[in-house]
């Protein structure tokens, strides 16, 4: 079974620039999550999709972050403009409804 695919693995940008991350979940998984993990902390949920609808985006900084899941499969997470405090690993995860989440390798973002 193929796992959750994320790209790019690493990204370095200057503050105020924009960046986008891509996630391809496990086939058949209706639920998709984006998490932000700051060094030394646990993952923090940014947004949760069920198919192509948003279930929870209460912790997404909507003035600069956006996410979409077209056709209920792939998803992109965008940051515009980036701030220094956005430096973190962005993890995508997917699951069947009410089941354990499978995580991708993450994208490490450095904002300089």
């Amino acid at each position: 079974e193929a796992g959750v695919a994320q790209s790019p693995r690493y990204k370095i940008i200057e503050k105020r620039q924009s960046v986008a991350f891509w996630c391809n979940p496990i086939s058949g998984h209706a639920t998709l999550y984006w998490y932000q993990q700051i060094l030394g902390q646990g993952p923090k949920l940014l947004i949760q999709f069920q198919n192509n609808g948003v279930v929870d985006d209460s912790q997404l900084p909507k003035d600069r972050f956006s996410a979409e899941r077209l056709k209920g499969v792939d998803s992109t997470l965008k940051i515009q403009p980036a701030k220094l405090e956005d430096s973190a690993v962005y993890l995508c995860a997917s699951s069947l409804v009410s089941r354990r989440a499978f995580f991708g390798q993450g994208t490490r973002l450095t904002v300089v």
Partner: protein
Amino acid sequence: EDQVTQSPEALRLQEGESSSLNCSYTVSGLRGLFWYRQDPGKGPEFLFTLYSAGEEKEKERLKATLTKKESFLHITAPKPEDSATYLCAVQNYGQNFVFGPGTRLSVLP
């Protein structure tokens, strides 16, 4: 608000020295409690799901237990390859996962 705390923050063990990691939680409605292992530069890897108080799960040197307020991950006779960050998460009825900060485990040969 759902919350998860973990202790200790970091733990250093000698190979073969058994110990336990703690996960304390408050959740509006517990659908499940999950333990994940995370190696540096990688995403979390699933270990266990526990659904109700009194439940126990085992896998090799690891054993997870659950009460109404906390969960323990017991590590018996650990090896250096068990070194990792261990994350605890609760899933609520909204189906999202709330993670704790993790325990960084180092097992020295």
